[in-house]
């Protein structure tokens, strides 16, 4: 009896640790006070004032839209590219296949961020010839994100494709379909769960990325992603923008939170499976 109470007590203690920042920020965002933070979780007179300020005085809507756009486009493209590559690695036998897979794994060990200076220089050079794709543009940022996402996800999807029985495609191939048609009509629909998981994991990763975005999106504040925008908004302004920042934090986190809980079990199995789950 006591033992069970102790267990529940410990669990609730951990939950308190997990949730207090969330509840506190939620409360702050409905609190009209901006300058001095209170220690109350539930505000005395809740208002939507902070949210109104956020939309009227800051470029928050642009930042949020930029983040969704960049993360959405990058995740969509990276899922398509990786599915194509994974299909080839899973179904075709060609010279250099093993070497290709191993190279992919090794390249992926070098985090892209370590080459940030080179990426900066390359985007600077691209800007001279193609201004819409270079430094300070969203397509440029997407380009960088796409490169970094290929290796791991191709591996991950290949593992899943390997579990889909070949007999399904073979009958289609006998009926005269090309391998590409088999891929499009048979493999992709069957692989829908893994495509969704990779999409969501990538979306969340791109949405939260700060380092690369911070030096690629130099320039006007209108082009910032949420991570860059919120940082510049609150950095040095904890004393006078805490309330309005809390509103931004709630809205910025909401989308990800909803998606995460909607696809909870798939995402968790994807994230915790890791690279070595084949």
């Amino acid at each position, binding site marked *: 009896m006591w033992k*069970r109470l102790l267990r529940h007590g410990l669990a609730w203690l951990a939950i308190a640790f997990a949730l207090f920042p969330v509840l506190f920020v939620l409360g702050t965002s409905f609190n009209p006070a901006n300058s001095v933070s209170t220690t109350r979780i539930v505000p005395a007179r809740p208002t939507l004032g902070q949210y109104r300020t956020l939309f009227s005085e800051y470029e928050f809507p642009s930042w949020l839209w930029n983040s969704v756009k960049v993360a959405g486009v990058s995740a969509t493209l990276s899922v398509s590219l990786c599915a194509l590559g994974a299909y080839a690695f899973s179904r*075709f036998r060609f010279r250099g296949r093993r070497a290709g897979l191993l190279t992919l794994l090794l390249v992926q060990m070098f985090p892209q961020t*370590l080459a*940030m200076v080179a990426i900066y220089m390359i985007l600077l050079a691209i800007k001279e010839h193609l201004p819409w794709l270079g430094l300070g543009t969203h397509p440029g940022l997407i*380009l960088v994100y796409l*490169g970094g996402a290929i*290796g791991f996800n191709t591996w991950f999807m290949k593992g899943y494709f390997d579990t889909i029985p070949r007999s399904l495609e073979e009958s289609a191939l006998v009926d005269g*379909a090309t391998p590409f048609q088999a891929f499009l009509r048979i493999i992709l629909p069957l692989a829908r769960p893994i495509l969704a998981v990779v999409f969501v994991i990538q979306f969340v990763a791109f949405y939260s990325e700060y380092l690369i975005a911070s030096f690629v999106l130099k320039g006007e504040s209108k082009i910032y992603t949420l991570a860059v925008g919120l940082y510049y908004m609150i950095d040095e302004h904890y004393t006078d923008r805490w309330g309005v920042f809390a509103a931004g934090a709630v809205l910025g986190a909401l989308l990800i939170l909803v998606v995460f809980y909607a696809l909870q079990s798939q995402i968790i199995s994807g994230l*915790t499976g890791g690279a070595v789950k084949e």
Partner: protein
Amino acid sequence: MRLPLGATGRTLLKVLLLGPLDAGAVYFAVLLSWQGSWGFLAFLLLGVGGINFLTLSRRSYPLRYLAPGLFFLLLMVVVPVGYNIYLSFTNYSTGHILTKQEVIRLLTSREYAPTPPMRFPFHAFGTPDELYGLVLLPEEGPRLLWPDGRLAPLEGHRLEDEDGDGVPETLDGHPRLVGRQLLAHYSTLQALRVPWEGGWLRLATLREFGYFLPQFRYDPARDVLVDQRTGVEYRAGTGGFYSPEGELLEPGWYTWVGVKNYLRFFFDPAYHRAFGRVFLWNVEWAVLTVVLSFALGLALAILLNDRGLKLRKFYRSLLIVPYALPAFISVLVWRGFFNTHVGLFNQLLRNWVGIEVPWLSEVFWARFSLIVTNLWLTYPYMMLVSLGALQSIPGELYEAAKIDGAGPWKRFTRITFPLLMISIAPLLIGSFAFTFNNFTLIWLLTEGGPVVEIGSRAGGTDILLSYAYKLAFQGARGNEYAMAAALGVIIFLIVTLISGLSFLRTKALEEISRGM
């Protein structure tokens, strides 16, 4: 999906599609080679050649699927990594951005005014829309200056001073420009460089042209730059021209410097102390947070793994909330809590015990804050992987152990933990590598601060990656791109070494090769 075409039809379609592409490529290739952009030219030719090969060759069939992904992987991972390694062996940084030719051109276009300065008044004629010509008035007599920079004698042109006040009103019938009318031609006038007695004339004020001499003359045979005023010779050395005293004439150019950048991290006092300090903390940080967060995650997993515990599904979904939020937002929120003046923690401490803790402004507390924040961010992941691993341990093992008289602690250390480590060790290594380079957390919470050493950019909580970021993008001494690139390579070597060694000790690699 299949096009209703025969084999010939498909070939024809391919040719029709490739034709315009190749034509366009040739056009741009000519354009690029004319501009001298060889890097882009090579890229274009390789790309278009690749597309042609992929479309026309039968043997390349699997490559058609791989090419799109490989393209981005090459462009944004492989090429940057190679380029980064190259940069790390150069001196590319503020003051060493240009090529040698550009530096020579820049320095030889520097000018100085002779003493005493020579100034020639001038008059300009025309309309605000069109500049007809100028008349310069040197002591030896007026000269004509055309807007394209040619000097000409005044003979044959009519310069008329109708009211006789010494200032001409018209030139060949064109009226003299004054005030705002003259200002309309300011940029044209400013761009004029008129060769004049070994130097040049250029606009000095809105009324006068000045006579200037080149400050430096380049002697290609001896590769020296001679200062025309002082006669001092600047000799070309590594990355710049140097005075006889060994001082660099700014700006320098970028050049290959070998392993110098790497050596500086180990021997140059301006870097090696910072590097050592940052490296130590970086390792401590990664080890400490992974161990602590794994301990907490495992403890909670064991708690939740008890099938008799009611509400455990509900508890689990509440406990993973930190994992379901974008990390950058959580970190910025925690930074607000840690704020010394208005933060939640200090408010509570003030109310309860009347003290304040300098959370982010003292090294010890800044590190403490980072570890607490990261614990909050990462324990859910550890909990989830531990739960998964715990559930895969067969229950019979525990039954057998119980019968043999093993207590709970013994069962944990002899069965649970060793079995757990088999599947979790690779993930812990992955976590370690990720935490080792977790720039976002460090940057958004402390920006690497607080300052620990005046004049050094590395703060008390900087990790190697944030130190590199500071070197590259926010230096007080400008952008030290090459040093940052070298640091990137060093970080890669460290992480590879550590994770490579640990991977060898686990069976992860074997499992990977089975997957192929």
